[in-house]
Structures are given as C-alpha cells and as structure tokens.
C-alpha cells in the first residue's frame, strides 16, 4: 500500500511521521538527535531508505547523519567542509560582513541537503557561509564546488539576518549539469556545467527597499520551487514579493497579485499541476508572524497573480507562528498532499491539495524543515 513518510527537522531533534495514503492516521516516532538542531532532512529519490540529516549544535558543531533503513537507525558520516582556495590563492578569500568589511569565509553549518535524483551516493550540501559542497561517496567526503563562491561577485556577498547561507537547491529533472541555488542575501544562481561555473539569475528582482534594484547580486531570495514537468519555470518567494521566471531564471516578474502581505519564506508547487503554487504570507520582515492571528496558506491555480486563502482546519484566531523557508513540501500521491511545519511546533497536512488541513502533531519543538517521501 502506498504511503508517506514526513521528515521534520526542528530546533531540538528530528522526527519521522508516517501514514498510509489516506493521510488521516499518523505514527509519530520518538525524536532522533534529541537536543540538536536539525536544519534539514531529505530522502534520496534514488533509494527512499537512504535519508540524509544535517545535525548541528552550539557545543559540538556540525554533523551529517545518514540512514539506510528509512530513518530507523543513523550513522554519522563525514563532516569536514573545508573551503577550497579560490583562483589559486592560498586562502579561501573573503566576503562582506554586516558592516561592509571583508570577512574570511568560515563554515558554520549545513542548511540544506539535496540528494541526487539518480545516484544514492551523491548529494549536495548548501552551507553557511554560503558555499556548495558535493559528496559522491555517500557522505564520507565533501568537496566544494568552488565556482559558485568563486564567482566574481563573491567578495561582495553580505549575510542576511540569518547569516550568509546557501539555503535552497533545485536539481534539473533530466539535465544533471543544471542546478539552481539561492543564497541570502546574494540572490539566485544557476550552473549549466555541473557546478564549475555559475550565472547570477536575478534580473527583474526589483525591491524598492534596496539601493541598486538592478544589481547583479545582493537580493534576498528566500526560497525557490520548480515543477519537474516544467523545469524552465521557477517560482520564488523573495524577501519582498512572489516572483516567477519562465526562462530558467534569466528574467523574473512579480506574481504577488492579491496576497495579503509581500513577505514570506516557503513556496511550493503542486505535484501534478505545474501552475498551482502555495505560499504562506507573513507579516513583514520585522514581525515574522502570520497576519491577523490567522494561519492561512495561499494557493494560486494560475501560476501566481490570483491567490485564494486556504483556512479549513487551520487556526483562524490567536495564532502567531512563522513558517520557515524549508518547512513546506508536497507528496506525489494521486491526490497531492501538502505539508508545512510552524515555529510553534505544529505540523499540518492537507491530503486534498490544500482544501482541508489537519494537524499531524501539535507540540514539537520549533520546526525548521519539512520534507515528504512518497513510498
């Protein structure tokens, strides 16, 4: 029987939630890595029993865990993320700090792990300070794809409020050489040669609040989404505004339409409808909670522009949570399920594409990421 496995990363551990295809009755396992921050977990499309987890903490640093039995048991794999020298120089170079001064690149944590679509031993890791690493040996060793950080604009990249982090990775469904990456607050980038060289793809990301609106980099991209049937169409939740590109990022236009706010973190696309998109509007970059005390997912069936609030089963009063950039996902069952987790520790599921919602669990630690495996 088909089912789903929901992988939840939180401030205090990882949780695995499972259900059958009905997605009404759930099993919630005891936490893995209790007490540790788990920024992200994701299963390998090539082998669903292989799951990767980014585990970190203030005392003992960054670890990468790997499960080969669907999340029941875990083993630590390699955690050496040493930055490569740039342009033949000895050191790893510098980026801009908050005060505009040069700051040497330094590894802090893994924000996002993106497993290869075809090879269980291969995965990519987006890290802070913003860099991209790749393993081809099941995580034993990680090597930087330094062309990204070595892009000519690299020394000018500045951190966003959460740090200078590479938080989003999208792999092209058929062209292994094409990868999209997003960095706060540098912007979005694309490689067409497997990571050797990168192109900033930020044209049209107009934000009235930044001094150089048409700058090549310096844009605060929060999240990207793509439907595998239309890999040239990208959706973006930007710091301000929801954006769309139909030319693989070469240009963007705004599709915020009638959303109640211009701020938010996650964005997702329906599994079977490439023009159906989900976002969670948040009250401004200063407040960071849902507007009006109401938890509302917004759905567009027109690829943006026109949005409808989805509220059935979600709290519509006294709710003041946030939904972070990696904390929304969709399954691939016939009737697409939509999932998200909140900073209040709730994980919600809609088994009917967003029409109705139920809380799978309500009292987890603050949720950092949600991913779904369709089994």
């Amino acid at each position, binding site marked *: 029987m088909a089912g789903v496995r929901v992988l939840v990363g939180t401030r205090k551990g990882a949780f695995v939630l499972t259900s059958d295809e009905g997605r009404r009755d759930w099993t919630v396992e005891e936490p893995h890595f209790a007490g540790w921050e788990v920024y992200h977990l994701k299963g390998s499309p090539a082998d669903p029993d292989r799951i990767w987890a980014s585990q970190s903490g203030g005392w*003992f640093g960054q670890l990468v865990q790997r499960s080969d039995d669907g999340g029941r048991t875990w083993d*630590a794999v390699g955690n050496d*993320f040493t930055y490569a020298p740039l342009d033949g120089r000895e050191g790893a170079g510098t980026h801009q700090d908050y005060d505009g001064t040069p700051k040497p690149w330094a590894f802090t944590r893994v924000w996002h792990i993106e497993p290869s679509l075809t090879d269980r031993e291969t995965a990519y890791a987006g890290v802070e300070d913003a860099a991209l690493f790749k393993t081809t040996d099941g995580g034993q060793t990680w090597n930087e794809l330094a062309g990204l950080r070595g892009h000519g604009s690299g020394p000018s990249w500045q951190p966003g409020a959460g740090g200078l982090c590479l938080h989003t990775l999208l792999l092209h469904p058929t062209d292994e050489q094409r990868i999209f990456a997003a960095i706060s607050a540098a912007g979005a980038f694309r490689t067409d040669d497997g990571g050797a060289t990168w192109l900033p793809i930020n044209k049209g990301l107009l934000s009235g609040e930044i001094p150089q609106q048409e700058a090549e980099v310096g844009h605060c991209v929060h999240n990207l989404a793509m439907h595998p049937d239309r890999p040239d169409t990208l959706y973006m939740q930007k710091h301000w505004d929801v954006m769309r590109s139909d030319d693989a990022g070469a240009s963007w236009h705004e599709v915020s339409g009638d959303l109640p706010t211009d701020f938010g973190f996650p964005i997702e696309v329906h599994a079977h409808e490439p023009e159906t998109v989900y976002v969670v509007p948040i009250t401004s970059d200063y407040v960071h909670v849902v507007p009006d005390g109401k938890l509302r997912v917004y759905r567009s069936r027109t690829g943006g522009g026109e949005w409808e609030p989805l509220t059935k089963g979600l709290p519509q009063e006294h709710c003041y949570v946030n939904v972070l950039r990696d904390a929304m996902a969709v399954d691939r069952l016939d009737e697409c399920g939509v999932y998200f987790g909140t900073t209040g520790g709730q994980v919600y599921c809609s088994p009917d594409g967003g029409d109705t919602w139920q809380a799978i669990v309500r009292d987890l630690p603050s949720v950092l990421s949600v991913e779904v495996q369709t089994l």
Partner: protein
Amino acid sequence: MTRVVLPYHLRHLAKVDGELTVEASTLEQVLDALETQHPALRGTLRDATTGKRRPFVRFYACQEDLSHQPPDAPLPDAVLRGDEPFLVVGAMAGG
C-alpha cells in the same frame, strides 16, 4: 590506559555507554585517539579545519581545567595511572 568520560550528546553520538579508555599521555593524544576509535566524534571536540578546541568544549581532570594546556602537555599522573578520569565537558552556556 587513560579513562575518558564524554558528555551525554557525545556518548550518544559515539554509541557508547559509560567511560572509554584510550592509549594517551597528552591532551592531543587523547583527542586523536578518541577520533580514531570513534570517527563520529571528528569535528565535535575541535574544529575540523582549524584544529582548535570548540569554544564550548572543556577538558577537566583532577579538579583542574586543562582546556588551555598546550596540546603536548602531559596528562596528570593520576589520569595516567587510571585513578582519575579525563573529563570532556560541554561548558555551561546560555541564560
């Protein structure tokens, strides 16, 4: 043999209960031996790139803080004899 006591998170990570024993007579040899016997501990006690002790990790023995000792400083005699354990401690940090 040098007895080593790890904090909760690192015991869990190394998948061990209770004390460990390593062949070591200096602080650096303790850390090297721990990482060799339990590769999952690599990078948790000292930064993988710089080799520096993590800021919130401390090393105690015989009621002394050895955290700032040179890497090649000999361990106290009581630790070398096995009378006292070498303690890896997650420092108190927070509010």
